[in-house]
């Protein structure tokens, strides 16, 4: 009975020690990974910080697990051997994971986008929430979460619409054939110069583009800082409609005349 009790005390001590190591280890690695995130974010960028944090934390967890198992009396060398065989088996079975992992490294090194950027991939458009080891998470404008595997991002064209500080807003405009080109251009220039979101430089474009089937096609290209892009677009569209009505400039629309003949 005494021996059994003594053994139990010994076991309890070992278990408590292992538990303490596990808790302390997780806490230390958690704090250390957060610190690395902060430092890497300052030195490089947010996603480098996130990657450093996750890599450090998960590596730490593996190390702590091995340490705890060692404390509990497991033979680590035998476990590592088994893990090696298991690793090969898992490696064959997880080619996609490895492909995504390597794609993630390339994505990071290319720095095509970072957390907070607005990107278009395939049919998806949204704001980058996180760049992880296996995937990139986007928040769409409809507030959906989309997970795109890194491999897909590497294979498809990615458009980063907020990479540069300013953007050009192109708006096609059609007017009737009865309008004077110079008058339309003058009105469009006036609308642009009165818009509070439009930048004076780079100079806005007002171009007479083509003779279409039932209209004269113009295009304006106006620059704004990326944060005001949507405000610029909306205000220009509204102002064009209002001013064209005031100036009696016709915005043509498709219609058909049906002529009924009485025999």
């Amino acid at each position, binding site marked *: 009975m005494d021996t059994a009790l003594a053994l139990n005390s010994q076991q309890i001590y070992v278990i408590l020690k292992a538990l303490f190591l596990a808790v302390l280890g997780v806490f230390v690695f958690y704090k250390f990974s957060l610190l690395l995130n902060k430092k890497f974010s300052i030195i490089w960028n947010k996603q480098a910080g996130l990657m450093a944090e996750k890599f450090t934390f998960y590596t730490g967890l593996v190390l702590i697990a091995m340490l705890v198992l060692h404390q509990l009396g497991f033979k680590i060398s035998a476990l590592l051997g088994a893990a090696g065989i298991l690793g090969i088996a898992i490696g064959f079975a997880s080619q996609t994971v490895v492909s995504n992992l390597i794609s993630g490294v390339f994505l990071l090194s290319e720095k095509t986008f970072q957390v907070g950027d607005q990107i278009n991939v395939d049919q998806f458009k949204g704001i980058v929430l996180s760049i992880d080891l296996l995937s990139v998470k986007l928040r769409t404008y409809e507030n959906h979460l989309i997970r795109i595997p890194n491999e897909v991002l590497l294979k498809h064209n990615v458009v980063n619409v907020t990479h540069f*500080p*300013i953007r050009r807003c192109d708006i096609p405009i059609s007017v009737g054939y009865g309008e004077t080109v110079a008058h339309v251009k003058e009105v469009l220039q006036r609308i642009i110069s009165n818009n509070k979101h439009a*930048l*004076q430089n780079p100079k806005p474009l007002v171009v007479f583009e083509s003779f279409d089937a039932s209209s004269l096609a113009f295009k304006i290209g106006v620059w704004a*800082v990326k944060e005001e892009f949507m405000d610029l677009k909306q205000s220009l569209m509204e102002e064009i409609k209002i001013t064209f009505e005031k100036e009696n400039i016709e915005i043509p629309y498709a219609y058909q005349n049906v002529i009924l003949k009485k025999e």
Partner: protein
Amino acid sequence: MNDGMFNRKDIFTVLNHVHSVEKECVYNLELGSLHLWFQFIQDECRVAFKYEEKDEDLCAFNRLSDFPSQLKLKRYIAAKSFNQFSLNLVFPDKSIVVGSENPVSILPRKRALFFVSIPLFVKLAVQDNKIEEFSTLIRPKTWFGDPMSGELCYALKTHAKREFEEFPERPFRAICPIKIKNNSGEVLNFEKICLSPKHLMLFQGKIHFWGNQVEVNYEGEKIETSISYSQEIPKHESDLIKKCAPREVATESIFRRTFDHLKLWV
């Protein structure tokens, strides 16, 4: 403090002074294109403003019983009730792009002095706490530099001039002298100047407001250009009084690598 239309002298009894708050009274400042209304109710300050580009000479201070209708009010809440307020003129918060009347070329080892008239901001403050800053003129925005790495600035309608007397007397504009020295062996060409007013001090004279002199030393296309801000009172007008410290103190010369073709960063 008087009400109604002000001449230039009178407006200085309103601007850059501390005033006691009159309860329930709606104050109205009209300066340049800015129409500003504000009211203090206990621990709350209500502010409304609009811009009208009609009369740049507009200069008035009134007391009203209520805000004009259809104005969007902004409310600022403080822990204590407001007893005093001030309206101070300050330099703008962003860089300013000003063109020269014609493209300018400064010959090797020659210097030139230019004057730029900068529209000031009005800072509404209570007990040294800023509530909001308002531009006295409508501020068209522009981009200075290339579309990948330039700077967002305000665009000025006026040009840099060689004689400051050409600028009309305005109680909401400050003249900043810019001395450009071409120390290189090549001709320096430019048609636009980008001036950062964050290091400028504001001085008040009898005729104009002034900023301290900026000195630009151009050493060549591939060498950094040094920019220094004089700590002395400008000498173009006598009896100047310092009214405002710079937003950011320039401790030593600032170096700009970019001396873009036809664009001068100051």
